[in-house]
């Protein structure tokens, strides 16, 4: 009646604590991004906001979405989608910026 031979069952339970730390980190980053928006870095403002958003997204992916514990195929899938988006946006801007 069992799947004892099943290696996938060997996941160690993740402790609750790590999720609270993840959540706190996300709250701190939210506070930083709201504060940073009030300062004037000029064109840097967008880059700062996007860098913080990307950091928050990475934290959610790695800890809440368990990417940290997944095999390489999941990381590769993610790299492919990020590269695809970068190509889309990059190529569009080579057109838009030099019209």
């Amino acid at each position, binding site marked *: 009646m069992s799947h004892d031979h099943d290696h996938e069952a060997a996941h160690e339970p993740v402790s609750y604590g790590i*999720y609270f730390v*993840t959540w706190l980190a996300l709250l701190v980053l939210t506070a930083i991004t709201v504060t940073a928006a009030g300062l004037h870095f000029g064109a840097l403002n967008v880059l700062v906001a996007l860098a913080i958003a990307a950091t928050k997204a990475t934290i959610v992916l790695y800890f809440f979405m368990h990417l940290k514990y997944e095999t390489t*195929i999941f990381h590769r899938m993610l790299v492919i989608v990020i590269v695809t988006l970068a190509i889309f946006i990059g190529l569009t801007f080579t057109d838009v910026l030099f019209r």
Partner: protein
Amino acid sequence: MSTHSIALEQHKDYTGSKIAIWLFLITEVLLFGGMFLLYSVYRADFAQDFHHAAAELDTLVGTLNTLILLTSSLSMALSIAATHHGNRKLALIMLALTVIMGGAFMVNKYLEWGAKISHHIYPGSEVLLARPKGEIIFFGLYFTMTGVHGLHVLVGMVLLTVMFFRVLNQPASEVRFAAGHGLQHAAGGRLAIVDERGTPLWKGERIDGTVEHIVVKTRYWPVKERFRVQDFNQLENSGLYWHIVDIIWIFLFPLFYLIT
């Protein structure tokens, strides 16, 4: 009395289902990626208009909704962790909290949209169309992107509500024996539940020629020591969806509320 034990094997491809949900999430990212591309191109063209229009959005409401969604992601993750620890009650409470916070996000969104619409700012309104082109585009993108995102939150809430009842009743597995498919092993005997010493706890009717199907349904809650991730992969996959909706909001928030 001879006993026949029949292995209750159910094939569940845990990794396969996880890859499938990630592929789906990638299509979601590309869907929003297209809208983010539109946003960035128009923002490059109408930087000033975007700044003015964004100043009209309430940063406080945006921040509040960010906090709500981040916290709902925490409760989602805790709900899944609770299943790993064999804590069914905590899993259900956290799942319910996640849905409630999703609801709170939608209520905020409703009030926010309502306020804009009552000021005659909505796609196609005459008041909005009288404004500079960049502001019309900004609000068009705002309603489209937060609208599609809100729709995802709603879908997530429905999904998690279904999962709540799944967790309440699950994990259950069902095995069917039909004539020609294992029923011959049981013919002439009885279905019984026995304890580890073989003492029957329950006995069924004698299985004779008139029996065409036997359905065995087991329902159990795994304890920490005997936990199988496969039993909760639907909950985990729904959680992944909830988190991707959170990630999309993480990008929407600064781009719409914080560019003043």
